[in-house]
């Protein structure tokens, strides 16, 4: 009985801790937006320069890796789709298969994972080092709010980058994936494009915007939060960075699952199952 109670107690603590963490992260989102709106000194030029630097590091510099991933993933899915759909006599469904698997699920998730690995770690360690080196306190002492100067531009730049990268991923994987696997299958290009265009729906745009914008926000808010949680010592920075990666992955995958589940429930409602 005591064992059971201690397990329940432990679970309760875990859930409370996670809820508290989520609340703190959401508070930081609110405070950084509020600080940016209320900051009367920070000019648009200052924000834009940090945002553009963030887009350069997160978006532009990630293009080679995203290109490789998109080409290989697109190729793999096209080959798998063709192989299995042909056996089932549903070659015409290749477009639907790619839209559902690649556009809705794989592209947002892989893009988010690449951004977490490349830029999330960079942001968490950069902000953590700034904290340990007292740069954050120094900014405050100069009357510069770190939430509007450090956090907001990184989050906004991150959201824009993730959305652009995800779009780029989809385009390259659908077109490039088809082209590089062309010598392995005999599907005509116009058949392929027609199948894809027929498969795209309005809700795909909504899912794309929802998943990628929130993934971008989650990654950069969590990473900034972990970086800012460093107290004094540089030895905390690697721990904060690791935690930033772990938490970002958990939050992003859970969010993606939640959106997919909502869409699935919506579909069931639409066809009258529930």
């Amino acid at each position: 009985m005591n064992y059971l109670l201690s397990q329940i107690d432990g679970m309760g603590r875990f859930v409370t801790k996670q809820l508290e963490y989520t609340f703190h992260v959401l508070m930081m989102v609110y405070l950084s937006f509020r600080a940016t709106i209320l900051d009367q000194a920070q000019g648009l030029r200052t924000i834009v320069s940090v945002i553009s630097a963030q887009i350069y590091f997160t978006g532009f510099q990630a293009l080679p890796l995203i290109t490789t991933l998109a080409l290989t993933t697109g190729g793999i899915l096209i080959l798998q789709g063709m192989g299995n759909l042909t056996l089932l006599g549903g070659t015409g469904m290749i477009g639907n298969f790619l839209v559902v698997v690649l556009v809705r699920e794989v592209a947002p998730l892989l893009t988010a994972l690449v951004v977490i690995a490349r830029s999330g770690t960079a942001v968490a360690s950069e902000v953590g080092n700034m904290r340990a080196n007292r740069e954050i306190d120094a900014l405050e002492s100069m009357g510069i709010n770190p939430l509007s100067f450090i956090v907001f531009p990184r989050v906004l730049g991150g959201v824009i980058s993730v959305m652009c990268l995800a779009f780029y991923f989809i385009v390259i994987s659908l077109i490039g994936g088809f082209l590089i696997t062309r010598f392995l299958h005999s599907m005509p290009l116009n058949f392929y494009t027609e199948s894809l265009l027929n498969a795209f729906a309005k809700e795909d745009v909504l899912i794309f915007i929802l998943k990628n914008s929130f993934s971008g926000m989650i990654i950069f808010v969590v990473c900034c939060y972990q970086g800012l949680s460093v107290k004094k010592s540089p030895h905390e920075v690697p721990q904060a960075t690791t935690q930033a990666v772990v938490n970002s992955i958990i939050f992003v995958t859970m969010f993606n699952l939640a959106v997919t589940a909502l869409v699935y429930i919506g579909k069931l409602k639409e066809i009258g199952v529930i």
Partner: protein
Amino acid sequence: MGQIIHQVQIESLKFEGLTFQHEGHDATFNHVDFEFPTNQILWLNSTEGAGKSTLLQILAGLVVPKSGKYLINDVNVTEMSFEEFLPFRLAIGFSFDYGGLISNRTLFDNLMLPLVYHKLLSPEDSKEQVMSLFERFDFVKFKDERPAHVPGRLRKLACLLRAFVLQPQMVLLDDPSVGLGQETMYEFADFLNEKMKFGNLKHLVISSYDEKFMNLFDGTVLHIEEGQIYKNTEPQEKKVAHL
């Protein structure tokens, strides 16, 4: 956005029942009632860990006390938001005992940052003011270097000088002489005395163990003991002469 915020005039600084405690530690300050002498140099001289750096950070509004009031011009600033405290903050310059320079900016950009951000001067005047500091302390050739690429002495100096670029009325310096080198230390002491005599600077609070450095100033000594602040009423004994 883009508005200019002006400094407030700092006339008085007072603690009322102020308590401060670092997480997991005993209270550094315990129900302190203290009015800081103004228009002079204050020397915080206490044992290590007594709370000198913490006191400077409370005065700068960088840490929030657990309870009690910190009154500037009889206005309690502890409950103010970042934006509400900003006019006070612009009147306060602060330098840490170590670190504090933005590592991805050059020394010049570090000194320009508060001026550019708050737009208190035109870009030309800002540059002129910052360059005059580089020239006075003879480190112009390092101005375009990042903090990691210059000697520690210059990092410390740049951090100290940045506290003065907004022409604040109050400056709080944490161990300013450590790592400066003898020659720069004397030059910096002259700079401080000039600022007090002829500049905007009205209140200067220095935390230091360095008697040699502190003997270069006339002022009041403050002690922190058992969570309380005391004013030393004895005249300061000059032990080391400026040679």
